[in-house]
């Protein structure tokens, strides 16, 4: 049968979310709503020190004075912040020593995701910090990392065991006042990951956290703080799949990276929250603030594959503060049906000889809208700064939209800035060229879409690339090939 773009379109529309299922773990939930009492409840529940409670209360005040932003090219029903329960945790259990002690429900979930902890441990050498409903329940490879002095644990553990580090760096990259959702997160975050790489240490394995949203009506407010001390290196993976639901779930995470002198952080994300069904009902709201700060000679590299969420609002950014620092951003964003994504990056050049690269690939299908919004700012003192940006959009249907809003601000005469963007549909001539050489239309479309995203996929660490490809396949390629 002749396979045309129309077929592809139909398949894309009809595609069901493959990873949709829920887990039934009794939760210990906070009443709906947000106020000072709730904040105190969360803080008390987590047995937090006074300074953290003060931090939260201050953030709440800031948040209450802010308005929800509406400049992004997305439209959605604004979440009712008083209808969300800001805390839910699996029943507190005693410290776990081995997998046997993990709730069998959770193990089952992991198996269905195809990432059984056991398998992960044995085969890939990836340490997995498993987050279910805001509280970490299993952390592996901790001992091995401990030998090198690497701290990789849940955020609440870090608050208990390393308060001085948390207190020193929390909110230094993303201040409470940064934006509406960052302020909300700062007030109500329940858990997340914390990572510290000591001076001169090269983390021997990819650190990975799998997130899942569970428990109906619970917003997930993750907080990640990653500190790479002088001369260290770490590759950090973050990935997520969420259960199918009809109700919109709010996800407002904050990720802060600190790369000290000569350090390098590679941060990769595969995002596959539930995107809603093909009528655009349900799906996750993903409003994330991610930012890293680079000291002298440091490097931060963001790689992301975004296939999920009903609404995405995400701009992983780099502040290139130190001289010779480097920032990179590689992104593939796929939107289908009624998904909306407004994503991009900010590269703030402050130090001399700073470099940044932005490669962003958007694919829109169905009735979705996919926007790139980025800022490249060269400060007055950023001598010889260099930026290259490329943002391409691929259109799969005549009802979808692809938009680019690049802001390029230059205040230095020695800077070199290049920006280019293209928007087009899959080229008829490209398909024709393939067909001429005996490649079927179906395969040709697969080949083109695949090749189009490869630039970015190749930047993912080996272990992760497999999963990323899998997700891309589910979103697009599988229906093509």
């Amino acid at each position, binding site marked *: 049968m002749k396979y045309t773009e129309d077929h592809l379109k139909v398949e894309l529309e009809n595609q069901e979310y493959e990873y949709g299922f829920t887990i039934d773990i009794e939760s210990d939930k906070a009443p709906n709503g947000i106020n000072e009492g709730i904040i105190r409840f969360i803080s008390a529940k987590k047995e937090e020190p006074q300074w953290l409670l003060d931090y939260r209360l201050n953030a709440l005040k800031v948040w209450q004075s802010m308005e929800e932003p509406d*400049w992004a*090219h997305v439209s959605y029903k604004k979440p009712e912040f008083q209808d969300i329960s800001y805390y839910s945790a699996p029943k507190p259990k005693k410290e776990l020593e081995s997998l046997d002690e993990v709730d069998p429900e959770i193990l089952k979930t992991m198996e269905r995701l195809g990432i059984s902890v056991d398998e992960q441990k044995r085969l890939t050498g990836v340490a997995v910090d498993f987050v279910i409903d805001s509280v970490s329940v299993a952390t592996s490879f901790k001992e091995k990392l401990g030998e090198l002095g690497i701290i990789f644990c849940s955020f609440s553990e870090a608050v208990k065991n390393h308060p001085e580090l948390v207190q020193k760096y929390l909110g230094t990259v993303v201040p409470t006042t940064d934006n509406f959702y960052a302020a909300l997160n700062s007030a109500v975050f329940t858990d997340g990951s914390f990572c510290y790489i000591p001076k001169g240490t090269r983390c021997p394995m990819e650190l990975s956290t799998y997130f899942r949203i569970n428990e109906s009506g619970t917003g997930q407010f993750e907080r990640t703080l990653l500190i790479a001390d002088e001369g260290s290196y770490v590759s950090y993976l973050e990935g997520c799949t969420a259960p199918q639901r009809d109700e919109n779930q709010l996800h407002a995470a904050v990720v802060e990276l600190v790369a000290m002198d000569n350090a390098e952080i590679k941060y990769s994300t595969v995002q596959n929250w539930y995107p809603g069904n093909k009528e655009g009902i349900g799906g996750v709201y993903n409003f994330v603030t991610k930012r890293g700060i680079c000291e002298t000679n440091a490097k931060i590299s963001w790689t992301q594959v975004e296939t999920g969420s009903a609404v995405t609002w995400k701009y992983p950014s780099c502040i290139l503060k130190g001289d010779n620092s480097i920032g990179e951003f590689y992104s593939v964003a796929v939107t289908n049906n009624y998904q909306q994504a407004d994503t991009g990056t900010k590269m703030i050049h402050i130090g001399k000889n700073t470099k940044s690269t932005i490669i962003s690939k958007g694919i829109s299908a169905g009735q979705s809208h996919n926007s790139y919004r980025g800022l490249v700012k060269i400060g*007055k003192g950023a001598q010889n700064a260099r930026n290259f940006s490329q943002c391409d*959009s691929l*259109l*799969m*249907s*005549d*009802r*979808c*939209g*692809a*938009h*680019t*809003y*690049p*802001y*390029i*601000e*230059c*205040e*230095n*005469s*020695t*800077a*070199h*800035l*290049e*920006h*280019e*963007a*293209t*928007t*087009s*549909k899959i080229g008829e001539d490209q398909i024709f060229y393939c067909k001429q050489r005996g490649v079927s239309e179906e395969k040709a479309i697969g080949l083109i879409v695949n090749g189009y995203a490869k630039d970015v996929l190749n930047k993912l660490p080996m272990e992760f690339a497999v999963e990323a490809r899998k997700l891309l396949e589910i979103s697009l390629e599988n229906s093509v090939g």
Partner: protein
Amino acid sequence: MSTILKEKKFDLAVSTLNDEISKSALAEISNLEFPTRRTENWRYVKLGKLLKQDLKTDNVADLDISDFLIPELNTHVIVLVNGHYNETLSSSTPSAGLLIDRLENQKDTDLFTSHYNTLSEKHSEEIFTSINTAYNQDGVFIHIDKNKHIEKPIFIININTSSNLITNTRNLIVIDKGAKASIIQGYYTTSEKGNFNNSLTEVFVKQNANLSIDKIQDIDATDKHICTEEIHQEKDSNFKINTFILNGELIRNNVNISVDGTNCHSEMNGLFIGRDSQFIDNHTRVDHLKSHCISSELYKGILKDKSTGVFNGKVIVHQDAQVIEAYQQNNNVILSDSATMNTKPELEIFADDVKCSHGATTGQFDEEAIFYLQARGISKVRAKEMLIGAFSEDVLAKINNQNVRNFIESRI
């Protein structure tokens, strides 16, 4: 009304062109906020100074305009002094199919009523557009009849002779089916200072018509100019606008083209040179409403001293506008550490069969190129001049008329 504007007393009379339209524009203004740095469209503009000034209107009868004419170029000349149409200074040879008049005189004609404000009302949320609609005092009406080709360019000269002047010039240009014309717009100031011009031109390019506009902005270094062109293109039409910004304290250009017919060609080019603490802002917007059209855009900027440049290009391909090619290009050279360039080339695409691209670069002259020239005995200053010349060449080459080109080149 925004409190800022309420407190500010402009010595302005409400436009008498169409009472209903003026009234609704006044109502619109009362709902609008004065733009600040937080207004997305005016993000980089510092308008505060404008409000501190006491502005007035003025009218002058006689003036020597020979300085502003383009040498060796025979044109129809229309002169507006301090925003007022000056019939004694204007001179146009009567030609078949060409109508040049004061806008006021045409206000009862069908041509006027069927066109006036139909384009700018779509952007009435822009406060300066509404101010112009409400308070415009004078302007030019040009109509080219069907299938008439007007060989001689039409030169509209706007001159400020007063100081602390406010003008709201309103022009209406209708190029009828199959007609062809070229227009040159010049904005100048004689010795006086501190003027604010807020001009708005509505342009209708009908089926199969052809229009090119060359705009020269060479006002005083203490003058401000907000200049809006609203263009409407029908099918098979060609439109081109070249903007040259040579001097002025604050210049903001809004070029809005709505391409409302198939098989149209639209072109926008611009060259700006910023020096001292000038502020130059170019906003363009192309709305592709119908299929099979091409639009291209080329803006180049050279920024010296403490000047600031802004380029904000927007291409919107609406749903059902298929087979569109839209290109945007913006190149800038920054020659001083205190100069700033802000670029924002935007694409909003709602159709799938499109080829759109934009490119933006900001940098400085290649040291090696300068060295190459110096090694051949050319002074550094001269070498830089040559490179500026080469950089400007692409935009200058877009000017159809050689005399106009020579004139602009001599002013750079």
